[in-house]
């Protein structure tokens, strides 16, 4: 079936009505457009990252795609299903993880809660053990499985919740802020785990995160949401390269020479005998060679912007 491995969205709108004035008799409501007429087609062979500022509509989009929320208008098809109908055969093919929200039983050893999943999705005890072993190795989990959730650290709980979200090996897993509140090592481990599950089990991950690396490390494709609209849709590497800037700093003999270089070669700032250039693409080497051929330069440095700086800039400029 053509639709079986895709997400299709057509002119999707989601409006909320929020109370802006609390009054006993005549409360005042305001309509907020969380998603504004977006269209999207995504092949589930690739993970998809969703970038956006707070309030851009990332989580709302995830809730619409999972069927938790009903759209105001427009069409959504996920794996050939209309999500909002929440048909059991659709629910068996998806998983959801929301950072900071727990679904496992707090007072029981994690393994007992996790075992409930095999009754929900109907797989054998042997298969359950196999998956747990596999996931535990990938996430570096040891005896913690036998501990109640309440005795675990945030990172450990997060790992357990992640396992519970896709131990049934669904086709799509929605990860909403999966690494929020976690330390660098645990974050990196989780990213490795996501990539492992994508390769090993063919699970497609749809990730929203404020940690840019979560998306750049795990998703080939991405969309950038701003104020409920998609402002970029495509390849993640292309997006980063397109907005990549190199910052070149050259130290000249004097302020006058620095100013002359800046004027001649298009420098952006001059200060304390230093000229700063911002270059897109691979022109930095060429530019430095040209300047070195004509001027005496005591020092120079080239700094590439990291992914987080690039995404921050994209979001700031919109």
């Amino acid at each position, binding site marked *: 079936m053509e639709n079986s491995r895709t997400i299709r969205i057509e002119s999707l709108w989601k409006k*909320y009505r929020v109370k802006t004035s609390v009054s006993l008799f005549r409360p005042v409501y305001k309509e907020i457009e969380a998603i504004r007429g977006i269209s999207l087609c995504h092949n589930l062979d690739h993970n998809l990252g969703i970038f956006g500022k707070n309030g851009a509509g990332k989580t709302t989009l995830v*809730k619409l795609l*999972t*069927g*938790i*929320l*009903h759209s105001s208008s427009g069409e959504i098809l996920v794996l050939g299903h209309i999500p909002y109908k*929440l048909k*059991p055969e659709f*629910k*068996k093919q*998806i*998983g*959801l993880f*929301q950072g*900071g*929200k727990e*679904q496992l*039983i707090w*007072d*029981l050893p994690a393994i*007992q*809660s996790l*075992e*409930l999943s095999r*009754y*929900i*999705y109907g797989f054998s005890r042997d298969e359950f053990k196999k998956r747990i072993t596999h996931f535990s190795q990938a996430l570096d989990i040891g005896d913690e499985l036998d501990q*109640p959730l309440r005795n675990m650290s945030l990172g450990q709980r997060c790992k357990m919740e992640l396992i519970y979200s896709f131990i049934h090996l669904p086709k799509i897993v929605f990860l909403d802020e999966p690494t929020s509140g976690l330390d660098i090592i645990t974050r990196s481990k989780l990213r490795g785990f996501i990539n492992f599950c994508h390769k090993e089990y063919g699970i497609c991950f749809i990730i929203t995160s404020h940690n840019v690396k979560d998306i750049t490390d795990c998703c080939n494709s991405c969309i950038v949401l701003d104020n409920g609209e998609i402002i970029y849709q495509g390849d993640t590497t292309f997006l980063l390269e397109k907005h990549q800037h190199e910052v070149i700093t050259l130290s000249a003999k004097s302020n006058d020479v620095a100013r002359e270089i800046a004027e001649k070669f298009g420098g952006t700032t001059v200060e304390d005998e230093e000229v700063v250039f911002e270059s897109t693409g691979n022109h930095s080497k060429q530019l430095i060679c040209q300047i070195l051929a004509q001027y005496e330069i005591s020092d120079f440095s080239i700094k590439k912007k990291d992914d987080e700086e690039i995404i921050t800039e994209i979001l700031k400029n919109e």
Partner: protein
Amino acid sequence: MSRYYTALGIQTIKEAAAYRTNFILSFLVVLIPLGGQLLLAKFIYSGGYQIGAWKLDQLLLYYIIATIVSEFFVIGTWWDIQNDIREGGLNYHLLKPYSYFWHNFVVYYALKAVYTIFAIIVAYLAFIAVSGNLVPQIKLQSIIQFIIMALIAAPLSFLITFYLSILAFYFTDIGFVMNFLGILLPFASGNILPLDIFPRGIRGLLLKLPSAYLVYHPSCILTGNYAWRSYWQIVLEALMWLIVFIMTTQVAWSQGRKKYEAIG
């Protein structure tokens, strides 16, 4: 999915066992009001007075049975569902291929089953203490009639609880409903006093409310003290309430789902 509900029920009981202090307190929660009711009834009757048409032995048995029945059937405060709706925990449940209604039904009665066992132990000890007998005089026919009634009261009790909890789709805070019911229900269900002793107007109203079919009528059926009314009439009325709540809950759920904002 039945294997899941069985496993869930067992897990809920295990989870309840994690709070051992609650078990000890549950003895007191049952013992103190029941002890008070039994002592008060004995005191009143010793002065030559009578409560309604109830003989002392009948009334003591009614209180003991009503204590057990109310532990199992009376509408509970079900904050889990409200919190799921208010704080977005419902998201996870909606995406699992089980019914949210039956999931909560199992958890609700698994917990109630645990505490009802404690209520039975306390009530039985109280029965021995006040009657001096080891076996209560209950007819086999009454037990069968009670079981039939219980099969209606159990889903009715949960449906009412579920309906009240999903009002959280419509109101920001439904704590006031739960608090109000917490005060009203012990009276309206017949837990504090048998409903037939109330003045005619109030009695007429209370006997027709769904709460009467959860404690008062089942307790009367088990004590055999309902001759003033046909057993099948009671069962039919209870069935009618069951149908009303099935329909109301379905509408409230499907409309509420559309209003749900999945906060968080």
